[in-house]
């Protein structure tokens, strides 16, 4: 579990490590198959049937059908693989990023133009309070 790892406390972040990679192997390899145009066509024609060709869990398939990228990441998806899904949908990285933050794309794009999301230290990267202060 991400919670038991030293990097588990980074807010809004799932680190794609060996455990996530193992969990998401079939999900990510399904994504990889969408790099070929004939596969994209078959997927678009019948998403459910195409997904059923892969040894993915029902939860993973449901997350793909719902285009729930945060859920796909929780279930082992990696963003560079998941990118093949939103590319197939004709969507950009910025569209997907906005979706995952829960912002609409316009607000997200404005946030980026204004310098992006500010870094806020949490947990172990918070500056230690000085003694006697």
């Amino acid at each position: 579990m991400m919670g038991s790892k030293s990097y588990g406390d980074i807010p809004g972040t799932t680190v794609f490590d060996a455990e996530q990679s193992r969990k998401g192997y079939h999900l990510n390899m399904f994504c990889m198959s969408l790099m070929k145009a004939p596969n994209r066509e078959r997927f678009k024609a019948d998403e459910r049937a195409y997904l059923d060709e892969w040894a993915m869990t029902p939860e993973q398939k449901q997350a793909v059908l719902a285009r729930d990228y945060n859920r796909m990441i929780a279930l082992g998806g990696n963003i560079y693989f998941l990118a093949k899904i939103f590319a197939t949908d004709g969507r950009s990285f910025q569209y997907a990023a906005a979706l995952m933050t829960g912002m609409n794309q316009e607000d997200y794009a404005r946030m980026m133009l204004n310098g992006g999301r500010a870094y806020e230290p949490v947990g172990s990267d918070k500056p230690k309070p000085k003694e006697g202060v």
Partner: protein
Amino acid sequence: MARVTAGISCSHVPAIGAAIDLGKVREPYWAPLFAGFEFSKQWIAANTPDVVFLVYNDHATAFSLDVIPTFAIGCAPEFAPADEGWGARPVPMVRGAPELAAHIAENVIQADFDLTIVNRMDVDHGLTVPLSLMFGQPKSWPCLVIPFAVNVVQYPPPSGNRCYQLGKAIRRAIDGFDQDLKVQVWGTGGMSHQLQGPRAGLINKEFDSKFMDGMVNDPEALTRIPREQYLREAGSEGIELVMWLIMRGALEGPVREVHRFYHVPASNTAVGHLILEPAT
């Protein structure tokens, strides 16, 4: 003998490639970014290398989860621009430098860096976007390219220190190659960015600025940044910055900062760019 004449660092955002390919470089959103590379294009026209040793990462293109090499050196005579899911970029075929690549592989492996040798590989935006930013849209690239792919997709990637030491070993290998070649080493990716989850859109200008300072003046200090600090402070994808340290290791010693550029945003990412020359 071959020699390292300069190091270049540069982000490799896919949307930059799309802006070039679709002729959007003069649009208000993109113009300030491309303005930062005007100097670089002129500089490289006057300082064109024979070979670019191009450090980048593959984005689930040539390498899936079936094989994940930590360091992979491209030894083929040519590398095709990849179809990443929306058709291949309309850019020239990348011509390799098989003799020099094989020489570097042999020497670096004997120096205890266990590279994976790749003889067939398509190259994605990680490699072609920096070429486009530096060379524009020529009919063919004006130099040979040795692709050098680093795993930064599955955690843990190699440490910054490992990358820096590897850069030094690559430098020694290039110095020992018996042909009169000008070689540039490019480190691509970064700067701060996060593409996933509720924290997507993270940008840390302070981290980026200190990192660029360190690249020029104190790379040893950068080699002590632990992996987790990149994840926390530069974002989950900002850890690509370890690749810049391969370039800096290959320059060794003091450098002269020829050009620096920083711009936010390109899509979700802070774009950073340095041109460094050996000070001597």
